[in-house]
């Protein structure tokens, strides 16, 4: 049984308010055979300077420390790749550090940057992440990813990370999905939604106009997961710049408040010991007493059906930011949809729906920009970027792309980033004739979940319009 002390459950406190001043991202694709990583990183930082009408040199003049998210040295065959990028960005001799937390690397890089500003060490910090996943053959890439599992106990078993991850999907599918055909369709709806949203995103590398049947009939990867249930393997870069209040308002007229917290859980999915469910502010004591009766087999928590790291990241972040109910208090979310089923699991871990009822978030239409059941705005749109399934999963950049996308909605500048024909042309991508704005109207608060593997690390970032805070400092 895992137990926490009171000290471990302290609500994290930023010693001064921290603001997100600007963000940027490169094009994302499966491969860039004729582009060096530094070119993609410079694209991302240049996009961030363009966004606040500065030159890159002007924006760089504010940066005091740098936090780089780059998960896999062995993909790029370059140790200290962060130092290479830091040099190429012309940011020497500023202090810098590399952050590596698997799929959560981007979020973790931002976690470090925010803490640097909150502590007063820096007034302006850069969080920039990237991944280079195209420079080894795909099966060697799968081997390298499997090295993020325990190399003695798991990696030799097939050298395929999906195998260690999908056992959770299988368990969730049996226990909470009850192996129902209707649940399988709901899983597929996640893929249809996210790949469809990616069609409106020129940065996205996996846009597709598909149906539920296309997903259900796509090749099996590891049952019940099929090819179209799975996220992309991408290359690209993204960044965000965080500041104290004074510096933020020197860079832009409308910075966003940023809160961020992190959680963790065992690297080995098999090593999960039982514990009581840590309750979020919108859950009540005793709420889950009958969970195992309603869903036979759900007697273990987190078992294989939940991500404790995601639950704890939300547990801390909601209390930091004053979020009580995410559906009521937030306007848009970007979640880590590595697989359709893990996306549904996350709805429960972060309290959008209670445990066992994640599917309702999709089936109700709440997760859509426009609710397909009512043709009215969805209650809490999820992944308008296309997410990891439709937009990209360039590991070190993913969490920062999500934060950028949430920012664009709250700044009410989503169209400006995703609509211009010039960008579609520059990226060599065809803008769909039915291109539609996915700007979430009147968005004031949003959340991004950055998540590693079977849940070893998760960060929960909350962005808010500073005039719409939920809690006094």
């Amino acid at each position: 049984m895992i137990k926490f002390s009171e000290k471990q459950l302290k609500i994290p406190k930023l010693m001064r308010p921290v603001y997100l001043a600007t963000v940027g991202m490169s094009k994302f694709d499966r491969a860039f055979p004729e582009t060096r990583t530094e070119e993609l990183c410079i694209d991302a930082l240049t996009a961030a300077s363009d966004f606040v009408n500065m030159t890159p040199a002007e924006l760089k003049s504010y940066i005091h420390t740098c936090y780089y998210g780059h998960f896999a040295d062995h993909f790029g065959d370059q140790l200290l790749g962060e130092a290479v990028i830091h040099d190429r960005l012309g940011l020497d001799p500023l202090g810098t550090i590399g952050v590596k937390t698997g799929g959560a690397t981007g979020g973790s890089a931002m976690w470090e940057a925010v803490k640097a500003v909150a502590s007063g060490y820096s007034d302006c910090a850069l969080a920039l992440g990237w991944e280079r996943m195209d420079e080894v053959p795909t099966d060697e890439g799968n081997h390298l990813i499997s090295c993020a599992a325990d190399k003695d106990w798991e990696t030799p078993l097939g050298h395929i990370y999906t195998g260690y991850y999908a056992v959770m999907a299988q368990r969730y599918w049996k226990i909470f999905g009850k192996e129902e055909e209707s649940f399988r369709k709901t899983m597929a709806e996640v893929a249809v939604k996210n790949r469809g949203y990616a069609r409106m995103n020129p940065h996205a590398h996996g846009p597709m106009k598909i149906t539920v049947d296309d997903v259900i009939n796509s090749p099996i990867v590891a049952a019940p997961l099929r090819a179209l249930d799975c996220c992309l393997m991408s290359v690209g870069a993204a960044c965000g710049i965080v500041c104290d209040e004074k510096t933020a308002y020197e860079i832009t007229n409308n910075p966003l408040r940023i809160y961020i917290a992190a959680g963790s859980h065992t690297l080995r999915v098999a090593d999960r010991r039982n514990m009581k469910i840590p309750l979020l502010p919108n859950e009540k004591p005793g709420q889950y007493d009958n969970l195992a009766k309603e869903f036979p087999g759900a007697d273990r928590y987190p078992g294989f059906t939940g991500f404790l790291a995601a639950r704890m990241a939300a547990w801390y972040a909601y209390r930091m930011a004053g979020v009580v109910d995410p559906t009521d208090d937030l306007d848009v979310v970007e979640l880590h949809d590595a697989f359709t089923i893990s996306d549904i699991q996350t709805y429960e871990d972060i309290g959008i729906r209670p445990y066992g009822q994640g599917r309702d978030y999709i089936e109700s239409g709440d997760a859509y920009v426009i609710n397909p059941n009512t043709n009215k705005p969805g209650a809490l749109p999820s992944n308008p970027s296309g997410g990891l399934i439709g937009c990209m999963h360039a590991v070190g950049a993913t969490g920062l792309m999500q934060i950028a996308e949430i920012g664009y909605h709250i700044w009410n500048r989503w169209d400006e980033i995703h609509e211009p024909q010039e960008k579609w042309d520059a990226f060599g991508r065809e803008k769909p004739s039915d291109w539609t704005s996915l700007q979430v109207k009147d968005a004031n608060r949003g959340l991004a979940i950055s998540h590693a593997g079977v849940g070893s690390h998760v960060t929960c970032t909350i962005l808010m319009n500073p005039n719409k805070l939920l809690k006094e400092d």
Partner: protein
Amino acid sequence: MPKTDDEKGYVDVVNGRYKPRGTFHVIEKNQPIFNKDTGKLAGVTNPRDMTYIHSYGGEAIFFESLGKGKLMASRCDNEKCDSKGSIFEPFRIYCPDCLRKAKPVDITEKARKTAKIHSFIITERSGAFNTLPKPIKFVNVEFDEEVVTILMSVLSVGEPEIGKKIIPIFRTKSPTYTIMDLMFVAEGTKESDLPDGFTF
């Protein structure tokens, strides 16, 4: 093409240090990468033959025991620890709560009597360097309530199903001294149906 014995690298421990012998890092020339459409140079390949050397430390007893047909786990026996009596499989050298050394315990019989499938997945895919036949049937194995964790392994014979009783098998002939020396089979499997080199 598998390497011959002369082309292989070996490592011993002598006087407390690693002593490599044999052949390591066979050199292979890099090759240019050209864009076939433009004829321009895009980059180069960097082939490399690496051998990592790795210590099992306090887990060595687990990996050595597999080849002897034994499944070792570890148990916290610290009277002052809330987790006293908890058995860890995967084996943990130290109790994660009190950080006192956990005691190695043989759970072979417990596994034979109580192992069942907690979850599973069947996949046709694998990464480079995989040696398992496909499809691979991953299983997560739960034991009785004394064992507080769940073990990941592979089902070698039989079809996986949640709750299904399974039996451990061990590579006792030419063991690899890795987790690949342990697999599971469905209850009732005959010894003659086990993969080469494995026994109950």
